[in-house]
């Protein structure tokens, strides 16, 4: 089973890493300011495996959230990949104010500001 987190910002990667972090040993955290790909406007990232042995991926393209889901489904139709072999998860707007601010900054293309807002935060389950 593969899980694809999609979004129009690098928050797809944060969601995927949060998912993986649930499988990490207690106390293990990923510092956001150590993640170089958060400055990328588009990327396809393999985040790792979760506790249930699912492969977790993140895909993001600036201002292209909707097309990602369609492209994933089109590709799986083309290669006849059964629907039970993958899930596409659209990243939702986070509750925490700093995360909401960072997401908005990414959406506006203000990557420097987004990184500054995320500085000091860790990926939490």
């Amino acid at each position, binding site marked *: 089973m*593969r899980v694809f987190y999609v979004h129009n910002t690098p928050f797809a990667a944060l969601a995927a890493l949060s998912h993986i972090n649930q499988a990490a040993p207690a106390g293990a955290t990923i510092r956001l300011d150590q993640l170089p790909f958060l400055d990328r406007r*588009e*990327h*396809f990232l*393999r985040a790792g495996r979760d506790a249930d042995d699912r*492969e977790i*991926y993140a*895909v993001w*393209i600036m201002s*292209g959230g*909707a*097309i*990602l*889901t*369609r*492209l*994933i489904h*089109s*590709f*799986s*139709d*083309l*290669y006849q*990949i059964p629907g039970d*072999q993958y899930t596409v998860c659209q990243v939702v707007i986070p509750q925490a104010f700093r995360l909401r601010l960072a997401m908005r900054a990414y959406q506006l293309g203000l990557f420097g500001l987004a990184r500054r807002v995320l500085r000091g935060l860790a990926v939490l389950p």
Partner: protein
Amino acid sequence: MKVIYHCFGGTHSSVLAAAVHTGRLSPDRVPSPDDLLSLPLYDKQDGQDYGRLEPYGQDESGNEVFVLGRRSYAQAPEIVFRGLASAFNLEEPFKLVDTAITLNWKMKLGGYLSRGLKLQGIGRLIVTWGSRRAYPRVVALVESTKKDLSAKKERFP
């Protein structure tokens, strides 16, 4: 091998390229506006259809040809499809060809009028005019794609 021609709407330049590739249009003769308008998918897809792969037939070597509308996200098909091929360990190769380089302003304007504003009368007049002018570039792109495909076939039979 699967060949995917993609452009903004998946309805003009990518359809032209797919039609030349599959032999629906002759590379030696510029098609008439009627020829163009009778092509499947030509000036027919709109905003609801982007991101969807549409089969367009096979070429003489058995390669399957598809068209795709991807709005302005020219890099999206490459990033997503390469990533997915690796995620699912797929061995069957595919080739993505961006046909937007063959566009001219008449195709952009006519396409916008016809598909975006639903002004088909004037839009189709302009987009078919632009398509006929762009036709040699489309044929050249398809020929170079076919050369790439046969070179790949020789290397990986």
